[in-house]
């Protein structure tokens, strides 16, 4: 063994030493509960007495797989995720581009747009629940006054509108987050690139399309990844607005229903494991598409 080899080994040992506390914490708060969930997914345990159980193989997984309610929840979650993240990205980019321009009071506006994001989801949901109320809600009042509709619409009671309302509230709450992440990306683009394009007569649309968009793409990608993973495990918004209504039930609400509602630790754990696998798969696909695992420079 050469001295450099020895030095490198010593360095590796020190590196592991530094990482060790994190590994221990991760094991305790993430790996262990996850392991327990997967473990219980193979049993017939009930929540009131988890110590008494028998192994039932893949029976719980099959139960969930064959439950139409689960697939309805998966569909709701995917629709919610794709539509809300899509709208939030578009809107976020548009607002970020506006805020990127220097104007009087920009600092104040930047701080103000964070308010929806800073509010607890339960509060935001309740605010909109009231504003959208068919008899007392502000939205209906305004629409009726303007003559757009004849009488109040039951936004939060009509099953066909409910998922749309959930998406609308989520867009209202989380677009600021998108705006800030994309704005940070925009601010990394040197002003001189635009001046160079301006001097050589590159039209505005091409400056946006060929300079802004490619250079802000990594920031948008990361923001979309965050938002997608967040949206896939959404629980609070749907639950506060409509509890376990089938039209807005997400995968997380389904798992909670099995686990808490029906006290079925086995099936609930199996549902949770399915949710984990689905989100994990989507995360891997997105990271692969964005090439986030590769160094950029």
């Amino acid at each position, binding site marked *: 063994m050469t001295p450099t080899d020895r030095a490198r080994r010593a360095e590796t040992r020190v590196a592991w030493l530094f990482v060790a506390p994190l590994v221990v914490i991760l094991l305790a708060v993430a790996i262990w509960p996850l392991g327990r969930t997967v473990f219980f997914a193979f049993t017939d345990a009930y929540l009131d007495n988890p110590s008494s159980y028998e192994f039932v193989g893949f029976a719980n997984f099959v139960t969930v797989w064959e439950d139409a309610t689960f697939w309805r929840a998966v569909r709701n979650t995917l629709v919610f995720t794709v539509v809300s993240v899509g709208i939030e990205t578009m809107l976020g980019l548009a607002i970020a581009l506006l805020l990127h321009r220097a104007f009087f009071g920009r600092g104040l506006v930047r701080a103000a747009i964070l308010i929806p994001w800073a509010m607890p989801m339960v509060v935001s949901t309740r605010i909109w629940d009231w504003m959208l109320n068919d008899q007392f809600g502000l939205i209906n009042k305004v629409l009726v006054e303007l003559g757009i509709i004849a009488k109040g619409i039951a936004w939060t009671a009509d099953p066909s509108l409910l998922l749309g309302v959930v998406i609308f509230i989520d867009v209202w709450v989380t677009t600021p987050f998108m705006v800030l992440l994309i704005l940070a990306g925009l601010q990394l683009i040197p002003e001189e690139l635009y*001046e*160079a394009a301006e001097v050589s007569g590159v039209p505005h649309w091409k400056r946006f399309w*060929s300079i802004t968009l490619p250079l802000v793409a990594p920031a948008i990608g990361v923001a979309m990844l965050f938002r997608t993973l967040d949206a896939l495990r959404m629980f609070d918004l749907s639950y506060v607005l409509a509890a376990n209504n089938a039209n807005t039930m997400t995968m997380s609400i389904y798992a909670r229903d099995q686990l808490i509602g029906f006290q079925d630790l086995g099936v609930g754990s199996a549902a949770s494991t399915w949710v984990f696998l689905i989100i994990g798969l989507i995360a891997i696909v997105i990271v692969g598409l964005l090439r986030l695992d590769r160094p950029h420079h």
Partner: protein
Amino acid sequence: MASVTLKNVSKSFGVYDIIRNVDLEIGDGEFVVFVGPSGCGKSTLLRLIAGLVPVSDGAVLIGGDEVTDVPASKRGISFVFQSYALYPHMNVSRNISFALETARIGKAEIMRRVEAVAGMLKIGHLLERKPRQLSGGQRQRVAIGRALVADPEVFLFDEPLSNLDADLRTEMRFEIAKLHAEVKATMIYVTHDQTEAMTLADRIVVLNHGKVEQVGTPRELYDRPATRFVAGFLGSPKMNFAPTLLTDGRLAGPGGFSYTPGLATGTTVSEIGLRPEALTLSAQPGSDTIESTFERAEDLGHEFLCYVRIGEGLIWTVRGSGAPPAFLPGQTVHVGWRAGNLYLFDRDGQRLDHRPADRVAEEVA
């Protein structure tokens, strides 16, 4: 090819006057360097010409046409930025051709132009690389290539070499001079480096606090600076200055400096100036010498720099060729000077023409 004319151009940002009433005439095909300390407004002046920044007052003319309200892209100019401003996600070839993509010329023609420019700048082998894979000098060449491919009437350079190390700077300076000889376009070049100004310029514009101090050829500015500011700015090492008092027609200064200039009555003189290369050192006092204390010698091989203290807080530089003289720190030495090399400045910093009084008297007689 085009001339550039500035008529009474001013620029203010809020309450700050960055450029004040600049009048300037730059000839067709001329290489003009704007030089001055940081914050003097030289880059702003360049941006006003480019149209990247609108003027607050006055007019800009390119090729005789008023372009004050014409957008940058329609002025027939190219701009080379200090940071190069290369598009980081595009390869060299696309960086050079990007602006041509919307110009309604065929792909083959674009490629032909890119290759011609790349060949001229010796970057033909780098066309597929991204800017981050290039060295500083190569990036600079790409930035120049991007300016060149537009075939502009006027090239504007904003401190293009300041991000390069010394060797590369000398090399690129040579390349830019060669480029000017080849394309014969008008070039305006901003720098804070007086060496770049002296070596590249047909004419130098010295700027100070947003105003033109002096315009002239490098030789004119070096030999006959209009002001103390210009005298101090051009030349490396800098000109030596010392305060002086005029009594009964005779100037007195530190270290026993004495000189009787033939000046018009009522003239004030507040400072004398002597360039380091116009001075000599000797152990013996002479008729025109200043007594000083030897501080330190620097041997640069082909030349030397000696630092001598001629008074409280006044260190002068003496430059000579070959090996430095063998004086010891603390030793008294005598700085020799000649009236022909002496600059006099009045209270407002204006240079005064002068000749020794006895010679003026001889001529009169």
